[in-house]
């Protein structure tokens, strides 16, 4: 829902509900919590040994299906592996996939958006049609069709997620560029005698590309959710590796006996995605406030 979320926040003032006021204690606490969660996850991704001492792949058949306890915070799985350790080690994979997918999506969107927002009539026509075609297969459908063509795997599923987020971003970037391009301050710069290149460079691009950072932050959370969905469907990271979606996928078989296999990796996904979203929204509110008040 990120593309709508971000798009909604960047609509013209007329019909955009937007974020009112400077935000109360709740928003600030929210941002602080989000930053704390992200710091934890980043630590888990970069240096998992700091948070857990166990080996994520250490099999211990005798200890299979233990419910959460002091020894195993999140319980153990069907092979007796420690779920907590696997969640910690999974952070790196999940985060990397999320960031890579967002980068792919934004990169593609940037090309399409710039073509549509700054290009000629023809460029705009082409880019708009491409975005329309991509939009016709919403979300996972586009990702699945792409995987059907390119074959399953980590790389294709990452690209697939990026691809399915791209049209939303492209539309936002294009409309931002268009609105900035027709802004009266751009006309005022023309009247001052500034060259077209200078106007594009000095006014249009900085004004229109500022949402990219916000989009990226909002997008990583969404990309993690989608990538884990693909993992859950068995189309992402192959099961033995510690990745949240894949863990959930294998945990699904035992949902009747071991709820912890489903709950904890899922919680990790939700916490990460929610933190990115909170942060993205706060950034968005700030840039909007700075730009327009």
């Amino acid at each position, binding site marked *: 829902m990120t593309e709508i979320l971000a798009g909604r926040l960047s609509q013209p003032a007329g019909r955009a509900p937007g974020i009112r006021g400077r935000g109360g204690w709740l928003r600030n606490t929210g941002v602080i919590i989000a930053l704390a969660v992200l710091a934890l996850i980043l630590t888990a991704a970069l240096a998992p040994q700091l948070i857990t001492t166990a080996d994520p792949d250490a099999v211990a058949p005798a200890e299979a299906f233990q419910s959460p306890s002091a020894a195993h915070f999140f319980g153990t799985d069907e092979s007796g592996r420690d779920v907590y350790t696997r969640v910690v080690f999974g952070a790196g994979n999940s985060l990397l996939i999320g960031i890579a997918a967002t980068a792919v999506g934004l990169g593609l969107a940037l090309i399409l958006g710039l073509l549509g927002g700054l290009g000629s009539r023809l460029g705009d026509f082409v880019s708009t049609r491409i975005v329309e075609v991509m939009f016709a297969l919403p979300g996972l459908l586009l990702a699945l069709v792409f995987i059907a063509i390119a074959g399953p795997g980590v790389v294709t599923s990452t690209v697939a997620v990026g691809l399915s987020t791209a049209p939303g971003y492209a539309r936002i970037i294009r409309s931002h560029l268009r609105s900035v391009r027709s802004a*009266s*301050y751009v006309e005022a710069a023309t*009247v*001052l*005698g500034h060259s*077209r290149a200078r106007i594009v460079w000095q006014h249009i691009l900085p004004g229109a590309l500022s949402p990219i950072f916000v989009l990226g932050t909002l997008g990583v959370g969404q990309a993690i959710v989608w990538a884990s969905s693909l993992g859950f469907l068995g189309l992402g990271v192959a099961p033995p590796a510690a990745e949240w979606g894949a863990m959930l996928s294998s945990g699904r078989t035992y949902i009747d006996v071991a709820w912890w296999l489903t709950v904890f990796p899922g919680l990790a996904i939700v916490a990460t995605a929610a933190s990115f979203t909170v942060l993205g929204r706060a950034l968005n509110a700030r840039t909007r406030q*700075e730009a*327009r*008040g």
Partner: protein
Amino acid sequence: MTATPLLRVSNLSVHFDRTARPAVDNVSFEVAAGECLAIVGESGSGKSVTARSLLGLAPAGAHVSFSELSLAGESLPAPGARRWRSIRGASIGLVLQDALVSLDPLRPVGREIDDVLRLHTTLSQRERQARVLELLDAVGIPDPALRARQRSGELSGGLRQRALIAAGIAAGPALIIADEPTTALDVTVQARVLELLSSLRNNGTAMILITHDLAVVSRVADRVAVMSEGRIVETGETNALLRAPTALPTQQLLAAIPVDVPRGVPLTLPVDTEADLRAAAEADVGAAAEASPGPVAISEPAAGPVSAAATSNHATTAASADSAAPPALELRSVSRRYPTPHGAPIQALDAVSLSLTAGTTLGLVGQSGSGKTTIARIALGLETADSGEVLLAGREWGSLSARERRPLRPTLGAIYQDALSSFDPRLSVERILNDALSGRASDTRRSLTTTAELLDAVGLPQSLKNRRPLHLSGGQRQRVAIARALAPGPQTILCDEPVSSLDVSTQARVLNLLDELQRHLRLSYLFISHDLGVIRHMSDRVAVITEGRIVETGETEEIFTNPRHPYTQSLLSALPRVRG
């Protein structure tokens, strides 16, 4: 004035924040039956909050207190009380300023009026329908049956305002509160709406007219209360008060009205630091802001070539304009059409010819949709005419390509109505001005080459240079816009409604500034406005435009005292004057 007033208000105060100055401060007044009281003041004076408090509709977060609030001898309920619902609409009607959304944009206009009847009368649905049509007819809306079915977006501004009035009077209230009922309207439409309001009052309905416009007041009101900073500073019978105002805010308001102040005479500006400080505080600015000495002292480098002109008064400037020099800007028989999706194209301009003599001001006056903006865009080279010629200082301009125009652009500046949106929101005042300075023409005069000099010239303190336009007051923004227009060293400046969105006192100061700058820097202005008063005050010559055609051009005084074209005559007769 009758013995028992219809409405009595005593010691009304409204606080939003206990620590801050109250929005309405101990206000008391009375309205007699059938009387029209005008409450006048600039934005932020507390007049609208006062009006809403009379209906128990003060904005959320307001704390309202009073010692008496009574209608026809009966005291009005406490805010939030259920009984208000039988008073609003039935005993007191409210007419808001026309905005696209003063009527629910999703409902037919007739339904909005019908609501009042449904709530306050026992008429059957059929009777109500008939009554709605009667009301629409009574406020002068043609073809009421059609209009009743339309939604507000399908009506013109004048019709919407009439529909709002119809809703306000539908249940026959004894008192109508009209909040800026003519502000958004063109002058001829405004005149007709004022006539409608007058006729209501003549039929015995009492009225409170909230407005910033003293000219409107003098047409309709019996008595006037002037508000400033939440207080009523002066009350009196309309003619007497306007003739001999005693309170300073009233005098300022009157002095700032440009309508009958001849060319070159500054709109009197008593130095009122307190008000300026308040305006600055409201604009969320810390320092003294608008308190500007005006461009009395243009910095040293300007002294050379300019000082001669600076000593001469305006009449001589106009006369001394070198008649041999080519016009600063000239449009020869310019036409422009816009295609519409289906149907005939709109003829926005039809063979328009204008000539702006160097060193003078040409006022271009017309109502909304008359083609003023198209002329501005064509003159600025943002759009190309379909046919005709545009010359800038005698050189071909209209037919040049964007690239060919660029070297000439610094000689032609522009000031826009909405200053804020004409600035890149990310840039500080200093960056904005530096940007503009970097595009200076090669042959410009030596004056005003730094940001500091520019700020001086427009009477802004240096301390503002690090602010972003968003954090400036309206007047300050327009001054920055003027400074930016001056930066490239232009000979001609196109002013497109430069003061239309400003309060009248701020407007006066900005007009004075433009006037002084013209004298010091020998600028030529193409001054576009819908406001006849502003045009008369600023212009040497005037062109009147309607429906894309210039119907009359001439010396300002000639046009204003002896208009020839019927359209000009109708404009002038519609123009509300304070001492009409």
